[in-house]
């Protein structure tokens, strides 16, 4: 029971991270978005729904969305949006224009909706204590 509560709390940390990311999103501060993306993926790893990988490439949000062990709705679409989000906030030279950052905000909202919905489904089903070894995830590789 205690383990289940801990897992549920860990999942709610992901939701908190997403909400905080959206609330604080500043189109003039791509660096904050870049570091917060890392914090978001870190929260997934700590919640046990994403396996840490030695590959730098796998730290990217779209790879995380592809591999996260949650029932993400329309996963393929969300992965594509996450990849676009990555490209928009990581432009060469580090200063994306504000139009690109506004588009990134819209994409983040869609990603957050999908992730929060997936977490909600997982928690409602009382599966919060289950980890990736339970075979619920949709790992693609």
């Amino acid at each position, binding site marked *: 029971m205690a383990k289940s509560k801990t897992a549920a709390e860990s999942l709610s940390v992901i939701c908190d991270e997403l909400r905080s990311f959206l609330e604080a999103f500043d189109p003039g501060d791509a660096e904050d978005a870049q570091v917060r993306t890392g914090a978001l993926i*870190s929260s997934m790893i700590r919640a046990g729904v994403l396996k840490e990988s030695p590959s730098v490439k796998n730290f990217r949000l779209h790879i995380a969305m592809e591999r996260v062990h949650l029932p993400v709705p329309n996963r393929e679409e969300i992965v594509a949006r996450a990849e676009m989000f990555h490209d928009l906030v990581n432009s060469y030279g580090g200063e994306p224009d504000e139009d690109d950052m506004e588009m990134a905000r819209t994409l983040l909202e869609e990603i957050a909706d999908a992730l929060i919905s997936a977490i909600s489904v997982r928690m409602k089903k009382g599966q919060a204590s289950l980890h990736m070894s339970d075979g619920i995830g949709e790992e693609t590789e």
Partner: protein
Amino acid sequence: MTNRQVPTDKELVARATMLACRAGVDWSLIASQCTELVVFGSRAAGLETPFSDLDVLVVRKRGLAMPRPRVRGIDLVFRTEDEILSVEWLKSEMAGHIAAYGRWLQGSGRWRNNAWAVRGEPNEAAEAKRRRISRLAEALHNHWDRLTPDFRRRNLTTLRREKQRLQLLQSGIAIPPTRLLDMWAEHNSARNCCGVHALSGTDLPEILLETATQPELV
């Protein structure tokens, strides 16, 4: 010395065509709608990792509303003919990098001789880089506790590279592909045994001077 294998233009075009085809995009159509196609970044220099994207500058023909397709594995940067002649572009970090390290698959790239030549005081590219470093450091400070050790390392590496780039920009040197920055850091670290702190040193690696294709720009 590294054993770099710099790809031929034909190989670069073949890679772009293959990746575009996978995404359902006709690369020859993109080529027909632009005046310049320039590959830059690590793949242009043969310094890529298996995960490196192909960075391509696409200069659109004047007056042509060209779609901006998204191709996985290719980072397309779109500019208009007017934009690449603007002082803002010519002073930018990206223009300086492309002018020195870019591989022209199409077009003459006459603007590259003007890149950085128009750089005045204050050095706007360096100022932009300084702002970025400041924001990055602040973000890291704010979110440090919530990052896993790997993300901390990764962000510190980004910060180190950006400090290297700032040093180069302040010295009027075009920014090289990232792998060269890492080799420079490794070289300094081995020689000075002080890792990231070596970036505050003033010596610039010979490899940066050797690699640029436009010596007059470095």
